[in-house]
């Protein structure tokens, strides 16, 4: 004696957010039922497993039917099949496109290709996120990437426009797309301590200040790629370390500003040339795609690690970078103020973000 068929269709599609989350998280119906029973969220109404199973099945079916529409969220609003209240539509879309930062961290900077997709089971076992869910998230990245890749205009806005996501989520997607496009190296062991949020912040900085769109007025800019011209101009900054006078002058200016204000003054004073060289070298090498990819590892290896070994505090670092940037502009012979500030603004905020354990 079995239930052959069991459906429930409402004129207004009923959506249980809790079950939706379970579905998104890739749980099977049986597991979902178990979790719902355990959660005891249904405490007030006495329900049998049978009822719960039927309800869960039903919800899962609904989600499966909606999934097709969710791939193109704008369709959800003007399709006729499901009558879903606007706030539920927004919720469905937002949750569907939400991703685990753990997962995103793993994929960040990788090529969104079939090859990567094959490795998803590794990621799944590493992060403890169900494979199904990993696949959905990966496919979402890929789908967003494909749509946005060739579009002109601000990246996050494009994502938002096409996928009707919230501002924050759209920015996260912009970061993912940006990393995937530029293939930044994030997988090295030394970078493991950095979270997705750290990278997302950096990506946001890069997008805002270093891309073509950052200077051009949104007319026909591309947000996905860094501005070639700018990267080329960065070579000019070498003068700061190559010109010995300038280097000394720079150092003395910084030292005079920071004397007594930071705890690690002596270490700073001793290391100033190395630190400055490190930053300028990174800048001057950015014309090479390879070195662009290594931007973050370079920042960590060449700058952050030395500071950390000298036990700089975040406050020390902030003061140092602020004055390091500002004093250079006051150097008489230094003519690249604009480039310098554009470069240092981003590098400073990225370093500050990345400077933690």
């Amino acid at each position, binding site marked *: 004696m079995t239930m052959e068929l069991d459906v429930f*269709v409402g004129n207004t599609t009923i959506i249980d957010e809790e079950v939706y989350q379970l579905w998104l998280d890739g749980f099977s119906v049986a597991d979902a039922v178990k979790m719902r029973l355990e959660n005891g969220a249904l405490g007030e109404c006495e329900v049998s497993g049978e009822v*719960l199973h039927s309800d869960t099945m039903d919800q899962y079916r609904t989600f499966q039917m909606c999934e097709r529409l969710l791939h193109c969220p704008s369709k959800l609003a003007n399709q006729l099949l499901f009558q879903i209240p*606007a706030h539920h539509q927004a919720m469905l879309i937002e949750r569907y496109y939400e991703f685990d930062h753990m997962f995103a961290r793993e994929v960040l900077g990788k090529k969104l290709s079939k090859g990567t997709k094959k490795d998803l089971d590794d990621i799944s076992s590493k992060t403890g996120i169900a494979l199904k869910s990993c696949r959905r998230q990966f496919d979402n990245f890929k789908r967003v990437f494909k749509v946005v890749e060739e579009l002109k205009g601000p990246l996050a806005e494009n994502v938002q426009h096409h996928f009707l996501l919230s501002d924050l989520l759209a920015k996260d997607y912009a970061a993912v797309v940006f990393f995937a496009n530029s293939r930044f190296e994030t997988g090295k062991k030394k970078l493991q301590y950095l979270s997705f949020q750290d990278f997302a912040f950096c990506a946001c900085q890069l997008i805002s200040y270093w891309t073509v769109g950052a200077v051009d007025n949104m007319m026909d800019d591309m947000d996905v790629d860094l501005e070639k011209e700018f990267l080329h101009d960065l070579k000019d900054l070498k003068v700061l370390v190559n010109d010995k006078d300038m280097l000394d002058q720079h150092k003395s200016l910084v030292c005079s500003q920071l004397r007594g204000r930071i705890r690690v003054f002596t270490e700073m004073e001793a290391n100033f040339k190395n630190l400055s060289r490190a930053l300028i070298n990174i800048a001057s090498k950015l014309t090479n795609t390879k070195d662009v990819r290594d931007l973050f590892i370079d920042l960590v290896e060449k700058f952050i690690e030395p500071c950390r070994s000298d036990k700089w505090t975040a406050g020390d670092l902030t003061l140092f970078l602020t004055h390091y940037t500002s004093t250079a502009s006051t150097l008489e012979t230094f003519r690249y103020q604009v480039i310098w500030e554009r470069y240092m603004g981003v590098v400073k905020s990225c370093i500050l973000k990345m400077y933690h354990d």
Partner: protein
Amino acid sequence: MPGKLKAKIVAGRHLPVMDRASDLTDAFVEVKFGNTTFKTDVYPKSLNPQWNSEWFKFEVDDEDLQDEPLQITVLDHDTYSANDAIGKVYIDIDPLLSSEAATVISGWFPIYDTIHGIRGEINVLVKVDLFNDLNRFRQSSCGVKFFCTTSIPRCYRAVMVHGFVEELVVNEDPEYQWIDRIRTPRASNEARQRLISLMSGELQRKIGLKVLEMGGNAVVGYLQCFDLEGESGLVVRAIGTACTLDKISNTYAPASAINPCNSSPSKDTKDSPQAVPSALGCRSTHSSPVHSASSRLSQGFSVSVPTLLFAGMKHRHRSSEGPRARQCRAGFGEEAPGVPLSSGPPTPLRAQTFSSFSPSKSYSRQSSSSDTELSLTPKTARICLSPSSPTLQSKSSPIPTTKALRSTTPPPLHVSQSDTAMLRKSVSFSEDLLLAASGMGSGGSAGKEAGPLKALLRQQTQSALEQREFPFFTLTSFPAGFLLHVGGVVSARSVKLLDRIHNPDEPETRDAWWEEIRQEIKSHAKALGCHAVVGYSESTSICEEVCILSASGTAAVLSSRFMQDGALDMDHRLSRQQAPVFTSGTEKGEGDMGSSASLGFEDLAPPGCGFCHIPYDELNMPFPAQLTYCHCCRRFKVPDVLFTTIDLPTEANVTGKGCLIQARLCRTKKKAQGEGNATAISNLLPFLEYELHTQLMNKLKLRSMNALFGLRIQISIGENMLLGLASATGVYLTPLPSPGGIQIAGKTPSDITYEQHISNMQKKINDTIAKNKELYEVNPPKLFTLDPEAFRCINTELVEEVIGSPIPEPRQRSRLFRSHSESSDEVSELDLSHGKKDAFVLEIDDTDAVEDIHSLLTDAPTPPGFYSCNTEIMPGIYNWTSALQMFTSVRVFRLSNVNLTNQGLNKVFNDLCENLLKSLYFKLRSMVPCCLCHLNFTVAVPEDELIQVAVTAVAMSFDKEQTLENGRQSCDKTLMKAITENEEQLQFPLELTAESSSNPLSSAKGLSEVSGALPSARAPSVDYSSFTDRCSSWIEQLRLKAHTIRRGSIKTMSSLEKASPLPEGRSRSLRSNRSYAGGSVAVVKMTPLSFIPGTKIIKYLGIINMFFIRETTSLREEGGVSGFLHSFIAEVFAMVRAHVAALGGNAVVSYSMKECVFMENPNKNQAQCLINVSGDAVIFVRESELEATPPQPQSASTQTSSSGEGT
């Protein structure tokens, strides 16, 4: 005569990819009507084609306009091979043919394919230019309105109810025509869809013709069904109630004075039956198999069930064909001399009642004293409407004379509350009447004399009804004063053997079958002393070549007020109308009674209890029943239990809340063929029916209730079993005696353990009864604690005096009562008029009884916060919120155990239904507190071991707080609303026209509406204005949306800024353009009820009647049977919504799923499903908006309401 149909294909969207190579589609559209086909250009390589075609014009007969649907086929152009069909849209243009319904069809329709389901959408515009047809012999019936709603539609007024109309059309089923299967299933399914669409068009047209013949202009309670008889063909049949409806929109205008419709009903009205008492009863008969070819087998038999079923036929024909009313009256007056004439104080109320009837006529007439005295009681009920004394409401009427008099004091301003629009006219002279009436008194005599009067009255109305072949009404709720008495349920079933329909043009056999059954119903009704059957419906169940035809209804006595023979005699009425003041003046002496007689017309029997009074003769009862005096008026006899198929009348006196009661039964049957099978089935039927009734009765008692409304008994046949499902809403009718408990008795008292077992069960049952009393608030003490005011009423009744302040006492009282209630016979305390009731005794001497008891106790109570009923109205809940969720749920259960006993089967079936209900409660838990209304179960046995149950219902939330605090008050309000509704409806459109007069178009519309009282020809401006209205409101909506978007972005921006660590940075804020790209899909509400709480229906746009077939050859890939059906039902909803939206509507009311036939063949990975749905497309506006912004042009407010909702 011709009409011009115009169609324009605008665009498509979301089309499927038809060309794999390019991932695009080269789509074009074929538009077909009748035999004419037009094509659009091919719009190459696009999934969102913009055809923007010219107007395709079809010049056609209006007969065709009614029969044929507009067929739109979307195809993919293929240069080399044949063009591939993407899908089709059928558009029923019937709504465009009535001047009052929709004027244009415009919108996005899902493109539907029987295999792939919905594949994109197409935007279409359709209009009709109709020329007036004055040909007397025409075959068309354009303009007759159809309503699924089984009550008078909300924005109409019934001028007259003409009666029963029926028709059936037969054809060969295309599915079975092609035995050699040359066609693909898809081709034959499309042919079926087309054919059925055609047949239902034809059927509607034919019914329309009948309506026109009767002088009506509408069909209410239109019920259309398909019988898929398999090889023998396809039958489409329909029944309905022909009415003359009058749109309530402009009666305020002086036009009303001229409008003859407003004048009162003609003479019969006044002499209509008054004091005819009534009782329950349910009769059913089965005629067993009659082979259609040779009617050799035709044994007939009837069943008698304790208190319920009635055996045998008692025709009690009153004096032949009833002399004309007037003479009767006179004669009667002489015959009843002993009746005390007036003796009471004058009552201003009388004028009030009077005003609600027609003028003049009545004066000349005499009255019996019983009229006079009775006329008081109704008053009380109406008085209760006044907000000042809300609590008295239901209780005051039962109180004997003294109190009744007391309650008659409220000022005559209540006049304005009386029920129909007629009133307005009468008001003018009501004051004179007041004077005239002042000399009159009321007698205190009991209703014994009612006997002869009853007979008389019956004669009179009978004369009106008897001329009808079938005095049947498919309505389930009635205008106030129409339903006088209810006798009980009458039903008939007949088992038939199907054979091929040889000549589709002559559907005589099927006609004869139904005729037979209807005759039987009619005679049952007669035996119950009733001349009419209300809440009438017909159904079939088919298995192989055996078919059960069933019909059921409620025997009733109706007021003839809305029923007249022949057409309206306008002159007559007008002349009558002219002299009201004279009459009242001149006839003063005799007029006293005259007016009271007229009062008595409907109000003789108080509205709250009148319908419960037995219509049959007490000494000559058609079945055994216990009669008692009515607990409300204490004058007339009422039965102890009342079963009906109708909705609970709004004015009924009900204690507590109601609940869904179901009896479920499953019986095995040997497999057999042909005649043998038919015989076996008809042998089983009576037992099935008997047991269903026993179950219903037990469950009713278990809930301490005494009446069933909306009773629907469905019997389905399968190859090896019979299923019976009876659903109804149980209530406690205050006028009826309180039901006794259930007592269990064993036959063998020797064994101690056995006795213990019995006493255990008895205790369980008693506990359940007590629990149920609490749950449904049918426990008076419970009421007291909640509501001291309510207490007062009953208290008064006890003490027989109105006590000033009731507050101090209640506590004590309630305690007292509680202890009584535990012994479960507090009734005797309250009840002064009748003695102790025998408890219902269940003997458990055999397994059947044990089973009964078991099933009694296994019904799980509804979870807290939920109520359920299968009627429109749930007694005790009045403050609905607008949250509303219509749903359909289908389950199929496979019985794997081949050798199941009846008992086992019963349990399985019972569990299936119970679990389904549990699931529903769980699904809808977020809506608590809520009530599942109109729970409509349909059972079927699609295959050997399958049981299918389909439910369609609506869940409606209500406000709990209010219910507790001022449930009574709000109850009054709703009652008042119900009664004053007409007036409100009058006002609204008037304001509308006044306000919109700035717009020349809409003012034109307003004008045309004002003049619309005269059956107006369609003014073209009407279409136009509503169209522009809609456009402008659409723009409005866009603007609104833009606004909210802007606001949204501001919020998010600021939050971003806060988060940004680089305040000096050129932070590029995201422009929040999360517009749901053209997300302008209008919300369309659906409900099986005839109304949407908190809203007012301002326009009926036409009937929705759709039939779909869906098939698949890749069942597994589509998610198995559940996935397949889930998407199909969702698609059906989507198509219904799209059609309603295209008509300009925002809701479907009286929605029902008539048919859901599911077949599967898992081995072949195939499945097929047929669904037939129907309902009325309407435009509603929220009441709150009406009040807040009355000047809003109609469609604008419609739009805001539709955008404002979301739940």
